[in-house]
């Protein structure tokens, strides 16, 4: 059995990120007895990651290009604070090989794969080539380095519908599904624009669109001693505009045999790339359980907690151990899945208004707790949700003995969850868990597009109760105003004062 030392080590880790994932990594450092160093932009001076870390240093203005993407400043802070290693989280510099090289050049440990493996597997086109060489089936797609005209010609040859995809990055940015050949030119332009803004690289390529596929991915862990294992799969088919919204483990669609086949293929591809640390191979699986490699994420993923809950393995702690040269604590035969876990991403988007981003000050948060509920969040009362960063503000993860147990627990937890001050997508998730097809795990990546009316679908109407509550409150204010101004009637000025005192915005 693995053991843990309680003695604080002298090791210090800089976390080159913000929000929930920075908090997640800092917690792992604390649990390993290591020191943590946070970095922050002007927008994040009061953020949780700054408060939870042992040390914190300012790295620039709010825009990420001037702070969280500034390799030079982050390296400077790492040296100044005496850090031994850097954890990049996800997003920002997590898949930037130049950053990994700069970290190593500064004599520090990069908690992730080598820059070479990142180059190879982080670029979607060369990752496809590596996968093909390792005998992994891939979706037919365009070769490297085509311009728009060539991509259009290639698409006509391949046949529509096709997917336009950014070579760099992830998170659904720079992706476009194209059914109508006439739309292709615009889609290429849009995808390039988004990719440039998000990853600083506007390279895109074309893939055959596999319709009604399920998005299923394999988590792998590899150490520096040649050990590589897979931690089962996650299903992330519930997507909106190619962004994952809900993830679960295990996939209700995957049986033990398919799991073993996909796991073996993922491990083979990772070995071929000499991959070390945590990584994820994403696949599209069709109705007949044929699977196609899509891309590899050479970093920790947003949805890693569902795998942690079903395997009992703390992936972030393993990442840190591996980076410091430790051997994996687990062999493949130690990995046994127990129960079922589901994660929902909480974003500052208004599901009643076509998921428009919402900005504002978070005035109050009530998080669900109790059995089988895990929260990962960077939120705090007083937090400003701005347009500078990703709208994902928290993750709610539930664990149950079966998928059914997990779904009802999720429903219960969503009922308890309140965020005031900004609009969130909690109402969307509440409706999703009531949907029969979701409950029956009868979905694919086209599910949300095929169910645009989900927000209207279900609602236990309490209009009358809401009307009564408002009327009683209005009545009380009126009575109060009557008393305060001596029974003369409701004075507008008094109302204003009263109103100002109560000025807490619900959304």
């Amino acid at each position, binding site marked *: 059995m693995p053991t843990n030392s309680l003695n604080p080590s002298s090791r210090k880790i800089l976390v080159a990120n913000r929000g929930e994932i920075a908090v997640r990594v800092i917690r792992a450092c604390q649990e390993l007895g290591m020191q943590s160093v946070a970095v922050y932009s002007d927008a994040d001076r009061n953020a949780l990651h700054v408060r939870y870390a042992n040390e914190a240093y300012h790295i620039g203005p709010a825009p990420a290009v001037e702070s969280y993407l500034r390799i030079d400043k982050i390296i400077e802070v790492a040296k100044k604070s005496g850090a031994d290693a850097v954890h990049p989280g996800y997003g920002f510099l997590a898949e930037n090989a130049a950053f990994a090289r700069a970290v190593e050049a500064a004599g520090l440990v990069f908690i992730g794969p080598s820059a070479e493996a990142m180059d190879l597997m982080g670029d979607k086109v060369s990752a496809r080539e590596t996968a093909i060489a390792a005998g992994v089936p891939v979706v037919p797609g365009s070769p490297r380095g085509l311009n728009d005209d060539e991509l259009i010609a290639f698409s006509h040859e391949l046949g529509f519908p096709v997917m336009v995809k950014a070579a760099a990055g992830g998170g659904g*940015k720079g992706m476009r599904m194209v059914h109508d050949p006439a739309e292709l030119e615009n889609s290429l332009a*849009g995808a390039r*624009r*988004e990719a440039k*803004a*998000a990853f600083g690289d506007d390279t895109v390529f074309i893939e055959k669109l596999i319709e009604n596929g399920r998005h299923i991915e394999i988590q792998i862990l590899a150490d520096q001693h040649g050990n590589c294992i897979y931690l089962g799969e996650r299903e992330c088919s519930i997507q909106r*505009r190619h962004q994952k919204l809900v993830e679960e483990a295990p996939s209700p669609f995957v049986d033990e045999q398919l799991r073993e086949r996909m796991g073996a293929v993922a491990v083979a591809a990772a070995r071929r790339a000499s991959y070390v640390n945590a990584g994820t191979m994403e696949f599209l699986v069709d109705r007949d359980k044929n699977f196609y490699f899509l891309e590899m994420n050479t970093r920790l993923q947003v949805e890693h907690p569902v795998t942690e809950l079903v395997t009992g393995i703390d992936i972030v702690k393993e990442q840190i151990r591996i980076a410091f040269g430790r051997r994996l604590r687990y062999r493949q035969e130690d990995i046994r899945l127990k129960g079922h876990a589901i994660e929902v991403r909480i974003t*500052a988007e208004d599901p*009643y*208004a*076509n998921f*428009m*981003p*919402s*900005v504002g000050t978070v005035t*109050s948060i009530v998080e669900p707790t109790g059995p089988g509920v895990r929260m990962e969040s960077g939120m705090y009362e007083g937090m400003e949700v701005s*347009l500078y*960063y*990703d*709208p994902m503000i928290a993750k709610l993860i539930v664990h149950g003995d079966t998928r059914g147990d997990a779904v009802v627990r999720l429903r219960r937890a*969503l*009922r308890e*969850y*309140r965020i*005031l001050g900004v609009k969130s997508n*909690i*109402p969307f998730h*509440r409706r999703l868990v009531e949907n029969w097809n979701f409950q029956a795990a009868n979905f694919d990546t086209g599910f949300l597009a095929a169910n645009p009316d989900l927000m209207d679908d279900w*609602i*236990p109407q*309490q*209009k*009358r*109760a*809401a*009307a*009564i*509550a*408002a*009327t*009683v*409150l*209005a*009545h009380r*204010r*009126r009575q109060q105003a009557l008393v305060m101004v001596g029974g003369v009637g409701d004075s507008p000025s008094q109302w204003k004062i009263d*109103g100002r*005192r*109560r*000025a*807490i*915005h*619900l*959304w």
Partner: protein
Amino acid sequence: MSTTYSTYVDGEELEITIHQDGSVEVEGERFEVDLQHISDQVVYSMLMEGQSHEVYASLEEGAWRILLDGERYEVTVEDERTKRLKAFQGPDKKLVGDLQIKAPMPGLVVKIPVEIGQSIAANQPLVILEAMKMENELRAPRAGIVKEIRCETRQPVELHQVLLILGEEPT
């Protein structure tokens, strides 16, 4: 003494009377309502004939924002005086005449796929606004004709800034 209000919730009108004893009458049905404050100015526990509801409430620009058991409602409550005043002022504005298309959030205009004078169908995209790294389409709330364009591509815009005026189609 009891007071009667006209209460509007999601387009529905309810006549609600609050009696001297605190009970509430809605369309002839009478309920015992116990609405209690918790700790601060916004959260309440409501027991209505034993049914438990959690209520968050705030009054903004004359309307009550109510979060009841986690669901949002916008409620307007009018007493008789206000109602009479309103009757005098005439009916509510509808989606007629010139319509201002405002930015629902701060962001960057990345595209304006329409031109002045162009005929627009309801739901047609008018402006593409980039915010939070995503492109967001602002669509026409009804059919019309583009009368003015008040923004430019690559221009950063503020919350509620008017971006475009959608006039009525000449009939």
